[in-house]
């Protein structure tokens, strides 16, 4: 085989590969993800591949003995490997003493307050941009603040994108709490579409005033603000100095997991964040994968867009990509490469489980509650199940359509629905125009909406004739929340995917004499804060139960007074349920938490359970077991070196 020569390109962002034309070498280089031919008029003939260690290793394994390395590439490789080894070593540390952090000099009380694992995370995060994927309730917000000080970036400015419910209660609270004693207490500016125009203008003015005065400032906003990209500080041209740090909280709920390396082909949010100039980037989520490893790519692309350039390229490197004749689908990790995959992720990821860092916190106990539907409810469920099946069959629905049908069915598995609420949506076929698409300028009415541009749909409204309610009441009574005997201070939280079910259960429990509050997507930030406060404070008149929609209750709220968690219906993503249960199961209170999941027998809910068990197994297999193996290997290695 001919010899090949690989060297860094002049701008230092790609590897150039040269060789005499050789079919074998061409076949080899085509196996390297991201390989592109560059013709003579653009500097070739040569091939280029993206510059990162994974690709460099792949290049080496494909071309192996044929490869001659240029001096700059050799030097880069040495440094990149050293950096990776350093990050691997840091990633495997489980505890750090306060005095070993720069943070200890800057905010001693924060360094002292943190647990050992948090300080270890701060040490790692102070070195590099990364994803903090620690389980819920392990104090990730404080770690971000600590890491920014550890990285000497505290002068700011800092951009934080977070769910609107956590702007004030989590971010403002934590930043002000830890920086108020500094010579220059950090300014926190919160910003969301819910604010009035004047309030938003004032916030922007205040931000620029801080920049002009060189005052440390945190701009904490919702994903929408970044997605719109209207503010000048989102634009590298208008804001050339950029942000010192850029953090996206609960990033799995933004468009980031569905990012694409190419503008306009992924989500608007992912396109917008790529443009935001920032020296250090952090992504936060307790549930980074949702059972699909490809969802990690969006986070990695956010951290290092110049390194993780192509989603498909990354997928082909690590994941199984199947072509079914109509297109490609991305599946799990390539067989036998799980350890290697985790090792490659380690320099970009912090991940700890509560069971590892807080062994004194009893693990959640899971109890499945199989419920019998009432006869009326069962009859209605069976009717709608048959109708859904016919709908799927007749209209040959795609995956989204099938999912929508199944999701609608879940309401009937929750309760008998005594009426249907009519609502209208824009016609999907004519996009609301009322004109038949593809008919030119003729005035044919859209066949789907008959010219109205709108489609009428019906939402089932559940009554309290539900097979699940007696089971729920029984479990609440067992836990000490018995309407006939309301002594004690036991508390619980209840979740449903559906707002209508939340409304029904909220009314039902209050009617039965159990003081109950509810939180849905319609609840304002102030109201959430009030509910959290009164629930956590307890005492006379305090609510004993909070009923929430799974997603609205899954973030930015601590309800650890609850000892039992009741999930009335599961979403298709097991992480949603975990996040919800973690409102009660947190480092802030050491207590036993029992999670009850209610499923109606013989319904779609049992199928969802099977799907979710598979997804949860993937999450555990890829992230957690591998990480534990990686840590053990690194520690063994370190012990070997030390010895």
């Amino acid at each position, binding site marked *: *085989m*001919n*010899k*090949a*020569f690989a*060297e860094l390109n*002049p701008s230092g962002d790609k590897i150039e590969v*040269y*060789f*005499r*034309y*050789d*079919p*074998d070498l*061409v*076949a080899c280089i*085509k196996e390297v993800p991201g*390989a*592109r*031919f560059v*013709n*003579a008029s*653009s*500097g*070739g*003939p040569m*091939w280029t591949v993206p510059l990162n260690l994974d690709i460099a290793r792949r290049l080496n394994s494909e071309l192996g003995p*044929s490869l*001659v390395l*240029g001096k700059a590439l050799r030097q880069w490789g040495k440094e990149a490997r050293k950096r990776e080894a350093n990050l691997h070593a840091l990633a495997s540390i489980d505890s750090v003493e306060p005095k070993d952090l720069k943070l200890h000099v800057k905010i001693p009380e924060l360094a002292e307050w943190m647990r050992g694992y948090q300080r270890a995370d701060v040490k790692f995060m102070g070195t590099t941009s990364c994803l903090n994927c620690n389980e819920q309730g392990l104090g990730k917000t404080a770690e971000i603040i600590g890491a920014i000080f550890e990285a000497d970036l505290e002068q700011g400015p800092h951009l934080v994108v977070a769910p609107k419910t956590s702007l004030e209660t989590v971010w403002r609270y934590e930043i002000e709490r830890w920086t108020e004693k500094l010579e220059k207490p950090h300014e926190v500016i919160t910003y969301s579409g819910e604010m009035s125009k004047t309030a938003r203008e004032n916030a922007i003015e205040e931000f620029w005033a801080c920049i002009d005065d060189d005052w440390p400032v945190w701009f904490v906003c919702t994903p929408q603000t970044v997605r719109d990209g209207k503010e000048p500080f989102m634009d590298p041209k208008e804001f050339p100095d950029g942000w010192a740090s850029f953090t996206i909280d609960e990033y799995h709920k933004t468009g980031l997991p569905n990012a694409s390396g190419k503008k306009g082909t992924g989500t608007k949010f992912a396109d917008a964040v790529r443009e935001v100039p920032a020296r250090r980037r952090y992504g936060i989520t307790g549930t980074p994968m949702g059972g699909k490893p490809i969802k990690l790519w969006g986070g990695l692309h956010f951290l290092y867009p110049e390194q993780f350039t192509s989603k498909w390229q990354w997928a082909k490197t690590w994941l199984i990509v199947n072509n079914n004749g109509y297109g490609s689908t991305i599946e799990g990790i390539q067989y036998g490469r799980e350890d290697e995959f985790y090792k490659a992720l380690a320099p970009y990821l912090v991940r700890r489980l509560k069971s590892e860092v807080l062994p004194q916190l009893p693990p959640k106990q899971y109890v499945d509650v199989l419920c019998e539907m009432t006869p009326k409810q069962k009859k209605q469920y069976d009717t709608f199940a048959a109708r859904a099946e016919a709908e799927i069959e007749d209209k040959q629905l795609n995956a989204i359509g099938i999912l929508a049908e199944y999701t609608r069915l879940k309401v009937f598995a929750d309760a008998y629905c005594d009426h249907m609420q009519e609502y209208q949506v824009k016609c999907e076929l004519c996009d609301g125009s009322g004109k038949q698409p593809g008919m030119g300028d003729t005035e044919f009415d859209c066949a789907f909406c008959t010219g109205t541009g709108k489609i009428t749909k019906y939402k089932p409204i559940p009554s309290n004739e539900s097979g699940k309610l007696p089971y729920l009441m029984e479990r609440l009574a067992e836990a000490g929340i018995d309407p006939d005997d309301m002594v004690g201070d036991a508390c619980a939280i209840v979740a449903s995917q559906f707002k209508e079910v939340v409304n029904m259960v909220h009314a039902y429990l209050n009617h039965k004499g159990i003081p109950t509050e509810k939180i849905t997507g319609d609840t304002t930030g102030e109201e959430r804060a009030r509910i959290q406060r009164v629930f956590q404070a307890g005492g006379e008149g305090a609510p004993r139960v909070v009923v929430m929609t799974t997603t609205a209750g899954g973030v930015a709220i601590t309800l650890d007074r609850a000892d039992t968690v009741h999930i009335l219906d599961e979403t298709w993503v097991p992480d949603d349920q975990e996040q919800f249960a973690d409102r009660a199961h947190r480092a802030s209170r050491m207590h036993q938490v029992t999670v009850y999941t209610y499923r109606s027998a013989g319904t779609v809910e049992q199928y969802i359970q099977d799907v979710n068990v598979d997804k949860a197994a993937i999450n555990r297999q890829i992230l957690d077991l591998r990480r534990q193996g990686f840590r053990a290997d690194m520690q063994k290695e370190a012990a070997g070196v030390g010895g």
Partner: protein
Amino acid sequence: MSVAESKTQFEIIDTNIVPDLYVTFIIDIWEGDRNDPATEVIRYIGVWRAEDLVNGDGEAHDPDWSEYDIARYSRWHRAKAKPICWEQLETVKEADSGAVMMRREYESLTDPEAYVGYSHNSLKHKELYVKFLDAIDVLAEDPDNERAWEDVNAFRQFQALKHEK
């Protein structure tokens, strides 16, 4: 493996004979090395009158594939026995566009006879490229060979200056 010489290759996939009437061939045609990523393999169907494929002694024979001219639109223009039907069925193997471009450029830059333009830059490019490729072979054996590194740097600097924006 070096670049295979461009020579038209054939592989008969199937033959069907209707006695005294027609002979049908399904045939793959390509140039050079079939396994080369730059090589495209195309499958054709050709139908001959049976009488055109019989020699003076009355013996049947295959078409003379050497008369097939890949360079001409009318592929069988110089054949004695022309098919009555010649149609492309499918592309059995697509050529990789990068490989095709590389082969073409490599051939023109390393072939002393090939025309790459008469400008100083074009000729210099050709000269430096050949020296650069030779230097890679030297460095594979002797990584500290200063002369070879000079040739590598000369070519890369020339390219960098040429494409500097």
